[in-house]
């Protein structure tokens, strides 16, 4: 199972995966731009506004009725951050028309609905309907203020802001309240118009009868010019170590440790680092889980994540506030041990197996099979599952040690319950 690429227009690429495996047709569109303070908040409003209404279906209610009539067709939209790019995601899914009581008469109707929602938002080409705009601006404001409600993701956001205060990566994917305050309806509509007409657009399709689908979509895409120049992130070597602690009225402390890896997706030793992250904290058999949770009983969750475009490895753990020193010590010790070569053949093999399994498992879910291409899109180098699996298979212990040696601690961030300050 693989994608076949086709150019549709300047900057618009179609990726087709013809398969009868699934009961649904999935279409995901990604529109990329540089992550910038000015535009990030604007982009974050777009998913909220698109679902409010389109030319043909002028309200949330009308859109929902149409999607219900299409037997639970689904439209969703979100904003993603990969490296220093902000990506607008537009997702449409419908039941494979051969499985519907009405047969395949609904396919074109469904695609047309999707296209109307994303290219023809309710209002004019200059502005969204103003009452919608005001409401969704308020809604985004509440979402941004509500980040504090989920302690773990809040802590991760704060850690990244601290770590990358002077880099685009420090910008939150949904922007910030201060910028939102001054945004105007016309600015956001203009920005969306620019996104549609001049930013790289990748359309992924997974399902049956894709020639017919592709032809239909090809007829909908308008001629355009691609103007936006996209950048890749800059690396920060030898960062100065930062420590930050904040307090809240809560039960459990969240500890985040952010490392610079000095290695990204385009580097030859990238998969050494991917395997290294897996051994350290990517799985339930990993060193962090085994040592922080299973042996020391300090945490319920602890793990590490790699952001392979920016080259950052983030460790996060939910711990008792009194035991943060102990937890940090075990975490640092595990990394030092890996740098010193304490990696067993067994750890290496089972981590590689685990990574290969997830690469394979992505082929069983249309959304996952599409999403696995995102890192390649951003870095300008698509790799299929077979290439990734091959690269992981070739990783050796020496490579992992070298990759881990390049890690340097940048930021330690702790969100602690009130009154536990020492």
């Amino acid at each position, binding site marked *: 199972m693989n994608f076949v690429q086709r150019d549709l227009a300047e900057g618009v690429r179609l990726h087709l995966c013809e398969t*009868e*495996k*699934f*009961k649904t047709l999935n279409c995901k569109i990604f529109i990329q731009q540089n992550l910038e303070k000015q535009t990030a908040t604007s982009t974050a409003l777009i998913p909220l506004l698109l*679902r409010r209404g389109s030319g043909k279906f002028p*309200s*949330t*209610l009308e*859109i*929902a*009725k149409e*999607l*219900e*009539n*299409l*037997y*639970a067709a689904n439209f969703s939209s979100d904003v993603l951050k990969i490296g220093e790019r902000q990506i607008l995601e537009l997702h449409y*899914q*419908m*039941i494979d028309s051969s*499985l*519907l*009581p009405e047969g395949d008469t609904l396919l074109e109707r469904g695609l047309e609905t999707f296209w109307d929602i994303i290219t023809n938002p309710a209002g004019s080409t200059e502005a969204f309907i103003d009452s919608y705009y005001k*409401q969704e601006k*308020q*809604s985004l404001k*509440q979402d941004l*203020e*509500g*980040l*504090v*409600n*989920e302690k773990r993701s809040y802590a991760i956001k704060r850690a990244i802001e601290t770590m990358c205060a002077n880099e685009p990566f420090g910008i939150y994917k949904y922007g910030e309240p201060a910028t939102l305050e001054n945004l105007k309806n016309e600015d956001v509509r203009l920005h969306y118009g620019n996104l549609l007409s001049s930013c790289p657009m990748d359309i992924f399709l997974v399902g049956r009868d894709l020639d017919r689908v592709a032809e239909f979509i090809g007829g909908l895409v308008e001629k355009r010019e691609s103007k936006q120049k996209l950048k890749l992130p800059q690396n920060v070597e030898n960062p100065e170590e930062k420590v930050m602690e904040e307090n*809240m*009225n*809560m039960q*459990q402390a969240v500890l985040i440790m952010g490392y610079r890896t000095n290695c990204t997706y385009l580097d030859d030793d990238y998969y050494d680092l991917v395997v290294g992250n897996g051994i350290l904290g990517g*799985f*339930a*058999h990993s060193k962090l889980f*085994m040592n922080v*949770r*299973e042996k020391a*009983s*300090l*945490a*319920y*969750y602890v793990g590490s994540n790699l952001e392979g475009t920016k080259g950052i490895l983030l460790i996060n753990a939910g711990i*008792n506030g009194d035991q943060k020193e102990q937890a940090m010590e075990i975490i640092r010790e595990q990394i030092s041990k890996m740098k010193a070569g304490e990696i067993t053949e067994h750890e290496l*093999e*089972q981590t590689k*197996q*685990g*990574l*290969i*399994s997830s690469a*394979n*498992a992505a082929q*069983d*879910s249309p959304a996952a099979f599409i999403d696995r291409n995102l890192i390649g899109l951003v870095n300008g180098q698509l790799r299929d599952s077979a290439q990734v699996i091959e690269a992981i298979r070739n990783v050796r212990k020496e490579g992992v040690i070298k990759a881990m040696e390049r890690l340097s601690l940048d930021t330690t961030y702790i969100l602690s319950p009130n009154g536990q300050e020492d």
Partner: protein
Amino acid sequence: MEQIKTPTGEIIYKDNLQNGLTVFLLPKPGFLRTYAVLSTKYGSIDSSFKAFGKDVVNVPPGIAHFLEHKLFEEEEGNVFERFASFGASVNAFTSHTQTSYLFATIEDWQKALVQLIEFVNKPYLTEDNVEKEKGIIEQELRMYEDHPDQRLHTSVLENLYYQNPVRLDIGGTVESVNQITVDDLLLCYRNFYQPGNMALAIVGAIDPTEALQIIKDNYPEWEHYNGTIERVHPEEPAKVQNSWVEEKLQISRPRYLVGFKHDPIWQGEDLLRQQIIMGLVWRLITGRGSKYFTQLYDANLVDNSFGASFSGDTRFAYSMIGSDTDEPERLHGELTKIINGLKAEKLEPAQVERLKRQLYGRHIASYDSFEYVANRYISHHFDNAPYHLFLDMVQNISPSDLQDAIVNLLDWERSTVSILRPVSFSE
């Protein structure tokens, strides 16, 4: 093996083994993954029962979940490691009524299956390893305490019920968890993990005949109590304990949730039918295609967190609906008007028809999710409900069924409102 045809035209193979275990097998040609789940009909509410069919015992709340953690312990090595050695992943979860152990794998599903059966059937409990687990579970419970939705949910259940153990957190409390002993754990294990009280479902790249043989060859002889399980259930008054409660937490804006206490009068097919009906009722009010959603959203009384659910079992049944909101009292007033209005006026048949269409599509698509299908077949099997007839049952539901449910179940006299309010930073 019995063959059950699914609404998607696939075949599920079902078998009842001699030892009492029920097995569901759904082969998925063309897929690479295999997902399996082995469940016991034993959850957090089973804390009072006749041990080995004789004397009634009461064990500390949180024990089913504690046992779930502990079955991962082995005398030598570790269960996570064993699955990881060939790239498989393994996990478990506990609900009010069920404990489930699962794996997902690409390689060697046969080996994973043998290991799943083995570790669930081989508890290794020592004073030391039980003590050690208490620290981990304490952190897990504290994590939930910081989780606003979890807090609100627990608060509604605590106040809807007086005695029913469904009012307690699935994991118990830090205090109750600390009371748990090796003997308690073994007692529960020996009562509730008998194969007759369990079911195994596998969905994926399997050959059903081979899978069944592996299960038969590897399922160990059960050496403990093998008989009727008698659960003891406390008397529960019809009325609710508290009708309005408020709590504070460090959150950005208030959250509102109202729960309705229902009499648990449904079993088997009726229970499934009621679940479908209430699912449609709640979509009628909270769905994006609902005029009520639009009305409340436009009045800034709800946001995209607006949602509702029905939970039903033979021993409890309740519904909940809520949202984040700046004005919980006003939202409460408007919701009361909407629900009371629906009791009086006729429902639009066209809207109900659209909701049924939507449910049809969702149900078909759900067969692509191995986890969802396997877990559904098991939980409805424990409920004695024919899940494969889901779509036929949907077809036979009429607007008046929805209206009857609204009139009979959404009784404000038997409701609890719970509100979480933000603490100011000075507190």
